[in-house]
């Protein structure tokens, strides 16, 4: 018992230090960060008559994963709000025939920073302290949301069958903690039954690209890389009840 408790304490002590170091950022001082403003609202565009609107539905998940030499960490939110508007060349139903190439699309995804929770690897809640560190890291007070704005979508691979996803290249602007960077990543689109689609993607970001500053506590070596993965479920809204 005593040994166990002591071990726990030691691990915890190092862990707290390493998390603090990690969250405050340490590692190379990348200068790749660009604009510091949140993405500008979309310019007035022609009426999206030919675009189909999909709104965020439940079943979504966004996860951030980081590393350190002591303990990996992860935070997760079950809530991604926002919308996608897509042109006709987008697979809205399983098995739909579409042609590779540019797909007219725009969209915005937002994640409330405070809906992120630290979890253990097995999904159990980790700690309120860790949650608060995450919020502070992301300058929650001034920037309560993570915002992604889609600017380009290109269909690369058509699904081989109904159970396979369509593969796209996406381009967009991602704003975290008040810093906006252009990000490109492959995303997979899986049309689901009932007019829903699940968009999944993974990208590795560098904390320093988002001006998350190094800490002065370095007990364990921590990584600058944070892996962001998401599953975003969207669907066409059910038609409003018929008006009489």
């Amino acid at each position, binding site marked *: 018992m005593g040994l166990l408790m002591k071990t726990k304490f030691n691990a915890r002590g190092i862990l707290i230090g390493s998390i603090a170091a990690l969250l405050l950022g340490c590692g190379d001082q990348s200068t790749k960060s660009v604009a510091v403003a949140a993405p500008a609202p979309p310019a007035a565009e022609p009426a999206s008559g030919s675009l189909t609107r999909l709104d965020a539905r439940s079943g979504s998940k966004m996860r951030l994963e980081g590393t350190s030499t002591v303990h990996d960490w992860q935070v997760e939110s079950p809530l991604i709000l926002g919308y996608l508007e897509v042109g006709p060349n987008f697979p809205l139903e399983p098995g739909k025939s579409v042609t590779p190439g540019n797909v007219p699309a725009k969209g915005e995804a937002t994640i409330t920073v405070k809906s992120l929770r630290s979890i253990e690897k097995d999904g159990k809640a980790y700690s309120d302290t860790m949650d608060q560190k995450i919020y502070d890291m992301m300058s929650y007070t001034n920037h309560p949301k993570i915002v992604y704005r889609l600017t380009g979508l290109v269909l690369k691979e058509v699904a081989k069958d109904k159970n396979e996803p369509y593969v796209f290249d996406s381009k967009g602007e991602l704003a975290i903690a008040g810093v906006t960077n252009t990000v490109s990543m492959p995303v997979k689109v899986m049309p689901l039954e009932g007019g829903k689609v699940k968009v999944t993607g993974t990208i590795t970001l560098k904390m320093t690209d988002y001006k998350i500053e190094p800490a002065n506590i370095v007990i364990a070596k921590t990584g600058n890389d944070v892996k962001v993965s998401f599953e975003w479920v969207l669907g066409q809204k*059910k038609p409003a009840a018929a008006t009489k």
Partner: protein
Amino acid sequence: MNENENDPLGYNRRDFLKGGSVATLMTMLGGVELLAQAPAADAKVDDTKVKVAVIGLGAWGREILNTLGRLPMAEIAAICDTYPASLRRAATAAPGAAQTPDYKTILANNDIKCVIVATPTHLHKEIALESLKAGKHTYCEAPLANTIEDARAIALAGKASKVALFQVGLQGRSDPQRHFLVPFIRSGALGRSVMARAQWHKKQSWRTASPNPEREKALNWRLDKSVSIGLIGEVGCHQIDQGNWFLSGMPTAITGFSRMSLWDSDGREVPDTVQAMIEYPGHVILDYDATLANSFDGTYEIFYGSDAAVMVRDNKAWLFKEVDAPLLGWEVYARKDTFYKETGIALVANASKSVQQAPKPGETQITNPILSTALEYFLKNAINVEIALNAETREAFKDDPDGLAEIFSKVQKRPAAGYLEGYQATVIAIKANEAAVSGKRIELKPDMYELS
């Protein structure tokens, strides 16, 4: 031995020894209690608040108000009692709060997100059901009700709630000390379970003075056998619930005794002294007694094992080891307190900041740290839910209530004491009172604890 990691509230040994470097250093210097370190002075404090209303402003309602007043995340928006004098008296503890005799005005206020139901037990049902129906995060005092039917109705409403939290006021379930003790006991640190005992001793009338007979009856509902489930139901409910929790089982039978020892001259019907033998699986018996006629040794719970006993008092606990018990290791350095001829090894989690920190000048000490922890847990949980299920989310999901409920189920933390624990504790409370009043042994079948 990672069972603590499964604690739904997230308390674990890491919390117990958080900041252990200081504790360890000091133990090397001469032996002190193991004590969780207070948060660093410069630790950032989340200043998000949530609007809360308290319905029912008797002595316990006022205790809740006083406790809320010291919780930084609580904004007491409204207080409610049907009796004007109670409202006025409570208002001093919540100077900015709206005062109303009608709880429905609170439920109609969309800014109020949390409701605490602290009315007399037999009046919980209607308010709790309507509060949940109105989408308010609802904290309902325990016992839930004075009848099993009402308790079932409340618990089922809590279970069915799609976007509102339901926490039961079994506040011991929120106490960090007890969260530390559960796995400690279950891990076998006490050896084989032998027995348990708990008591609640006070010398007081349980009667409140009133200016008129009608009010007197309403105010002293605890002394009215038509609605009261007596000492073992109203008070014992909380202590017996800890037996369920610590002993990992539900009582199989209760044999009760009761008598009027002292307060027989005021015409009351509810016994002032109750004793009960509560049988748990494995032939472990919890010996419980509560009285209003003698205050000796106050309130405590003791769990006896073949290697050691643990005594829990308020939010503190001590370990009493047998001489032939295995050495745990850390106890050599722990603080010791002497109880007559016994030496108690302090088991002190005290992870709550409120417990550790001395009051600032002009600030009074929290009188009920366990209640404080329970309310804090409830309000923080509500804040987290409201952050995720904010107006934007609700608008986005207004045509998809199931989707909203799914998100709610993912963002809420498991309530410190949920509908099922609340229901089960209430069933036991009611049956224990029946046993005590009748002087009989009542068997409790497993299906009595099922909520269907």
